[in-house]
């Protein structure tokens, strides 16, 4: 403790170079707390009750379908020869892909110092966790004899045998369970200071107790912030390779097999880009109505929505490039099976799926080149839903077209989902929206402390932060 470095003095940029403020209307530190906590503190709003009703109905539907599946067996799904992987894997990949945007926002944008992430990272991380829960339903229930689900994990059993780690499906078990756990840890750590905010505001005994318990006695101490920020940085640094690996490993479930249309090296990056693309679609679908009904337009500004649109556009272009490259490689490979697989996708019995995918994933994001469209909330909301529709069709096309027509024409078939498939899928929306609505009602949906930290009022070198010298404006 002998030498003390002087505090860092940052020169403020000239006015013309200053970026638009992340929080509109110059809200102060306290006002940010008030606005965000108001969503939780006001009496249960009508829109919340109206949304909760269908969510709970669909959740019950999921419960009923799972019970039916377990009682009768996996034959209630449409999976049959030759398509033994049907909607279960499609929906699994779709949900887990959606989760990826949350981690991208919380981890990768943090490492890239994109300060605008602070307004949307909490809700996106929650989206990640709930989407991974919906995804996790499928591997658990698809195994047939569900009571042997624990055989997925290396737990000693009376047969004395172990999981087979040469299979990418085992890698998937580790990737997805690690992804879920680390996402929850990261989310919870981000919540600790905000739970302390809630603890100090809450008037009711039970709320005070619960928020106090989970905020672990946080007191805003700078000695604590020092370790906290380091741990946050490390978790962001760990989540970045994690999120890239999760969808890569999911893609290896396909790519490691020998089937035409699956056995390609482009799959890992292509799956990751598609995951981020669909995830940003879902972020937009959720945040556009939320910022209006929760009156958070000052914190989730139009600029935030625009930036999300730009990420969607970028990843949409990567996905479009991957579609093109797949077709090119199929032709260039000279393999008649590969060539047929792609011809069959576009012009075979599932042509509608392929062109729905191209329309929603390649054409739709091109609208985001235009500022007029990016700033029109109704259009962005509509397009964001199309993005998720398109990404569902992408997984459908990959899974079903390849399995339905692989090498030997005698083995060909046509896949039809059963009503149970459809209702189970609808049911996962019930799980997702029930969890998300509960999250909105009981936890701060925006990272209060992180938003405060990016305002000029929080900057000790800014006039609004009380600085006398240093600022030029």
């Amino acid at each position, binding site marked *: 403790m002998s030498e003390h470095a002087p505090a860092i003095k940052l020169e403020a940029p000239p006015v013309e170079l200053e970026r638009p403020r992340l929080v509109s209307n110059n809200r102060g530190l306290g006002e940010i707390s008030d606005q965000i906590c108001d969503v939780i503190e006001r009496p249960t709003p009508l829109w919340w009750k109206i949304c909760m009703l269908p969510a709970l109905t669909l959740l019950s539907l999921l419960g009923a379908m799972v019970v039916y599946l377990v009682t009768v067996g996996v034959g209630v799904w449409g999976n049959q020869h030759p398509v033994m992987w049907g909607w279960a894997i499609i929906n699994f990949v779709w949900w887990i892909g959606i989760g990826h945007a949350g981690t991208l926002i919380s981890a990768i944008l943090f490492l890239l110092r994109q300060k605008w992430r602070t307004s949307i990272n909490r809700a996106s991380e929650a989206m990640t966790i709930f989407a991974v829960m919906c995804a996790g339903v499928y591997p658990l229930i698809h195994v047939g004899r569900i009571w042997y689900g624990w055989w997925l994990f290396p737990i000693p059993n009376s047969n004395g045998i172990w999981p087979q780690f040469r299979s990418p499906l085992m890698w998937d078990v580790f990737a997805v369970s690690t992804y879920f756990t680390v996402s929850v840890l990261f989310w919870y750590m981000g919540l600790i200071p905000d739970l302390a905010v809630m603890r100090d505001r809450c008037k009711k005994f039970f709320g005070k107790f619960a928020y106090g318990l989970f905020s672990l006695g946080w007191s805003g101490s700078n000695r604590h912030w020092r370790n906290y920020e380091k*741990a946050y940085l490390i978790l962001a640094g760990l989540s970045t390779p994690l999120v890239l690996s999760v969808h890569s490993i999911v893609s290896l479930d396909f790519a490691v097999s020998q089937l035409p249309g699956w056995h390609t090296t482009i799959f890992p990056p292509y799956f990751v880009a598609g995951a981020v693309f669909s995830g940003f679609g879902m972020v937009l679908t959720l945040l556009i109505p939320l910022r209006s009904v929760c009156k958070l337009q000052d914190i989730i500004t139009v600029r935030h929505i625009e930036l999300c649109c730009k990420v969607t556009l970028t990843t949409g272009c990567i996905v479009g490039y991957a579609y093109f490259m797949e077709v090119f490689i199929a032709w260039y490979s000279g393999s008649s099976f590969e060539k047929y697989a792609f011809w069959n996708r576009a012009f075979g019995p599932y042509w509608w799926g392929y062109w729905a995918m191209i329309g929603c994933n390649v054409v739709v994001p091109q609208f985001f080149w235009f500022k007029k469209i990016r700033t029109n909330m109704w259009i962005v909301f509509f397009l964001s839903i199309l993005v998720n529709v398109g990404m569902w069709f992408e997984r459908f096309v990959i899974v079903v077209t390849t399995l339905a027509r692989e090498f030997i024409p005698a083995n060909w078939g046509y896949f039809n989902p059963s009503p149970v498939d459809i209702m189970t899928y609808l049911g996962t929306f019930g799980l997702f929206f029930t969890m998300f609505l509960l999250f909105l009602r009981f936890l701060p949906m925006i990272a209060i402390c992180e938003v405060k930290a990016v305002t000029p009022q929080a900057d*000790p070198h800014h006039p609004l932060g009380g600085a006398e010298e240093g600022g030029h404006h």
Partner: protein
Amino acid sequence: MARTRPFALLAEFEKPAHVMHAAEKVRDAGFTKWDVHTPYPMHGMDAAMGLGNSKVGWFTFVGGVTGYTTGMVMIWFLNAVDYAIPIGGKPMFSPYGAFPPSYELTILFGAFGALIGMLFLNRLPKWHNPLFKSDRFKKVTHDRFFIVIEVDDPKYSESATRELLEANGSTHIEIVED
């Protein structure tokens, strides 16, 4: 029967620049048992308090190494030793096939290392804190800034310390009891 022993001097500030400036003065005066409480992590405050780098990284490192080793050793033992499954003449153990699960375990254990390391270094959870007895201190999560100097600090003297904080812009000073 509550004990009424003074614990610390609690000085409130309204602006981040004021608390940053005051923290530099408290640091230069040579106090050791003191802290700054802020609603958000303030950049430059570590330097203003004279704090070095955090040690959380070491916990992550140990966690990560443990995770990777666990993965590799576990897969080698399960699939090559305890119950070997010969498939197509492939080697019983290959680091390539074992890598993806080990990689995930590296991240999993590293993440637990980061969170647990952070909590351990901060001595959290700690639900009892004398500062929580002060009503004004509730504003620390809202929009106020506080400097806390403990009475156990060797440099502490009630009048001189209070003067130092007042002279550097504190708007309200009180004594918190243990």
